[in-house]
């Protein structure tokens, strides 16, 4: 059982849902990312997802594209992000998930990447351009290193296929709430509740839902039908709009606190 599994078990016992917050590592710089992870935990985040910047983030909308570009402009590299996690592990036991497109990992070497993740204290990996059919080699090395392999299911995935995806997923299953790229949306997809209910019927694994969730009301609504809610672009919007590190920490902290409060049900 790694930190992700323990966290979901713990939340389950307490009858709570996971608040999973996403930021791009190194946006605007790695020191801020370090502080942000700790601040988000203090304000109620249960799991933190760190995005690995990539030159061609084709599943991402403009917000995360820009965040990725800012990190790349700062010359943030995958090995720097792994070092950051190592540093964070002296301060926190919050489950940390890396989200990276396949090519940076492939270039690093799948096996070496998995080993380094275990050593530095990464708990799980999401690869948005890797479907289970293509993941055999990755699954082998990830399992050996006790990393959770979190796959995505989409509104366009037939239920039979979601069953298969869930069977390959460990940690949790990531349900993409909308047919589209990442980015905050005012309105949620109307079929989302039905979809989540159907998925909960076919898998025992925790199901977390993300893409487009941008405010506490939406987070609360989704959390009733899932085991966790993932919020990313809405947080990055706040980072982008702040000019100082202090402002970043305050704004993101307040936002995460508001998500948390609404989800635990005041």
């Amino acid at each position, binding site marked *: 059982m790694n930190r992700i599994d323990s966290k979901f078990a713990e939340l389950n016992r307490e009858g709570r849902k996971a608040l999973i917050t996403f930021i791009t590592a190194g946006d605007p710089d790695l020191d801020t990312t370090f502080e942000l992870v700790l601040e988000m935990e203090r304000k109620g985040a249960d799991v933190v997802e760190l995005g690995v910047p990539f030159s*061609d983030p084709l599943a991402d909308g403009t917000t995360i594209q820009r965040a990725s570009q800012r990190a790349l402009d700062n010359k943030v590299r995958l090995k720097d992000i792994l070092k950051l996690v190592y540093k964070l592990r002296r301060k926190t036991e919050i489950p940390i998930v890396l989200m990276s497109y396949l*090519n940076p990992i492939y270039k*690093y070497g799948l096996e070496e990447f998995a080993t380094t993740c275990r050593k530095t204290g990464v708990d799980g990996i999401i690869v*948005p351009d890797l479907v289970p059919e293509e993941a055999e080699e990755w699954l082998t090395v990830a399992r050996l290193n006790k990393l959770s392999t979190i796959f995505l299911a*989409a509104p366009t*995935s037939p239920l039979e296929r979601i069953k298969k995806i869930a069977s390959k997923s460990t940690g949790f299953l990531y349900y993409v709430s909308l047919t589209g790229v990442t980015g905050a949306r005012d309105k949620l997809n109307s079929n989302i509740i039905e979809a989540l209910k159907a998925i909960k019927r076919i898998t025992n694994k925790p199901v977390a839902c993300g893409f487009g969730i941008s405010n506490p009301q939406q987070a609360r609504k989704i959390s009733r039908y899932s085991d966790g809610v993932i919020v990313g672009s809405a947080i990055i919007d706040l980072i982008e709009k702040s000019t100082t590190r202090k402002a970043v920490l305050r704004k993101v902290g307040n936002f995460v606190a508001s998500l948390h409060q609404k989800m635990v049900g005041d």
Partner: protein
Amino acid sequence: MENVLPDKSGYFGIFGGKFVPETLMSALKELERVYNRAKRDKSFQDELKYYLSEYGGRPTPLYFARNLTEKLGGAKIYLKREDLCHTGAHKINNTLGQALLAKRMGKRRIIAETGAGQHGVATATVSALLGLECEIYMGTEDIKRQSLNVFKMELLGAKVIPVSSGTKTLKDSINETIRDWVANVRTTHYLLGSCVGPHPYPMMVRDFQSVIGKEVKRQILEKEGRLPDYLIACVGGGSNSLGLFHHFYNDAVKFIGVEAAGLGIKSGRHAAPLYVGEIGILHGSKSYVLHDSDGQILPAHSVAPGLDYPGVGPEHSFYKKTGRADYFVVTDKEALEAFHFFSETEGIIPALEPAHALAYLMKIAKDTNKDEIIVLCLSGRGDKDVEIVKG
């Protein structure tokens, strides 16, 4: 034995596959299913044949380039005149095929990426023909250097959407088209223009383009009574070259692919992933790519916008790895020289993309024998490039 690649999972050896967001998986499976059915369906093949000949202008001539042959003093040189296709390049072979498929799938909206604008124009053309809504993503850098094609696409009723992210060229226009597709996949067909991307695209685009080689085979047998010794074509994503090569896969014919060396391989500003030989994952398939030590995709450079791409089709990667084809590089400067030389020698203004193949031909022709035969794919005409050449 026929070339049966890719395998069921879309692999050419270790290259290819489907590395895409989950949202696209059902659409790719549908496309594969519909395509495989259409491939065996006589009514589809007849319809495609009808449009290729009556509308597209096929078969294109296999022209014996007497002047060029005499000047270069080696093998007999034949040119496959894809520049004479409707819209001025081989791109129409694929866009007709895919647009007919889109109609079969009930998809009324077409999106596509374009670099040089040739694929964009060919897509806008078939969309107009078949009454489909059409939006083309094009990098702002390419919009600047290929303004004539932008105007053409708009005349044809397409909407050209400028892409200003990343390198502002073909690579980023593909990213943006994929994002659009992820959001609108239920109603939209992504009409990809080269043998790149996730399975089934590399296979399907190659099949639609293989009409080139099929005609060449028939024509050269009629003219010479034997197969050629060399096939030469430029390689960006790889569609004109694979279209030429495919029907000769099991014949004793040498395949030569020519990549863009841009300002020179050592300058780092080129578009020669096969030459450099690093394997990675870009735009849905595993193939040779240009990337840095951290796996970030590097910007490509070529004077020919259609070659200005940091990836290449997985089938080419397979050909390189297995030695079935040989790959060489040609710089911007050499391609421009060939552009001029060829225009003056044959009275044909070539596109800058096949000018790369011509430049390589000029280098090797003298080392070939007079009784040998070379077929070069003249994939497009150069009207679009006169502004670039004027500098």
